[in-house]
């Protein structure tokens, strides 16, 4: 099993495209996009979708959540607090795209949630 990843964005397209990109190098990792307002309502974050995404991303080994802007960070943090076991998920300060790819590769390699989060946080400009 692997650590799951949730991509919290203001844009559905951004989150979905990034999930595809990160999945290329991490076929066995649950990477769940959570972007945009509900029902194609445009740019914004959807707390309920983030909660559902965090639940879906968790296969028992924990979840790392990444976000685009500050309000997505707050939404992600609230979502984590609402989980049955908030300690199973962690919101990481990381550049979204670079962090998602690094986190996905780390998760694919079987790293635990702490290590996956660190991989995201220390991701810089792409090699």
């Amino acid at each position: 099993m692997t650590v799951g990843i949730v991509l919290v964005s203001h844009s559905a397209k951004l989150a979905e495209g990034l999930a595809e990109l990160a999945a290329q190098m991490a076929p066995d990792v649950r990477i769940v996009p959570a972007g945009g307002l509900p029902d194609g309502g445009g740019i914004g974050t959807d707390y309920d979708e983030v909660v559902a995404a965090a639940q879906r991303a968790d296969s028992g080994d924990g979840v790392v959540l990444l976000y685009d802007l500050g309000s997505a960070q707050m939404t992600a943090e609230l979502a984590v607090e609402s989980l049955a076991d908030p300690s199973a998920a962690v919101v990481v300060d990381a550049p979204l795209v670079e962090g998602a790819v690094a986190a996905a590769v780390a998760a694919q390699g079987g790293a635990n949630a702490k290590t996956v989060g660190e991989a995201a946080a220390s991701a810089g400009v792409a090699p």
Partner: protein
Amino acid sequence: MACTAEGVAAALRAAAEVIAEHRTELVDLDRAIGDADHGENLSRGFTAIVSALETGVPETPAGVAKLAATTLISKVGGAAGPLYGTAFLRASAKLGDAAEIDVPLLLDALRAALEGVQARGKAVGGDATMVDALIPAVSAAEGAADGTIADVLTAAADGADRGAESTVDLIPRKGRASYLGERAVGHMDPGARSTALLLRAFAEAAR
């Protein structure tokens, strides 16, 4: 109006009306230094609160505050959602199972709301956010502790107005407006303005 669950519900309905009236103003404030959606976001949130209250008003003031919190968190879609949501959540926790809010409890709830916003957004006074409206609102409310609920809320609204005004001269350090740096100076923070509007609506409802 007694500060029962029904009273809190009535205050939220009044707030929804005020937000609807000031929707364009809040959008315009947010257009200048953000993404032009603060009015839209709050409208969506407070409209949803009004709908939820139509389905049934919870039994306690805490229950009503909790319903406001969860609705705002789910519906607002912008920074104001988790921030005001956390404010109402913390206030609700303070209200406990009281059937009616008295002045000391109101002050506790206001303080908890401010703490919640700061815990959630990490902003301090002077960062040009809604925190700059809430800090003077809470101080002014504490200064009016001898009065009625309406007096306390009016003082809070007056404080929030002054606080919102103060954001015009500040360089934003949190939220989207912080991307603009000095270019944001000269503009009132939309969240500070909406905080003042909400507290004024609550004060009027409490008369």
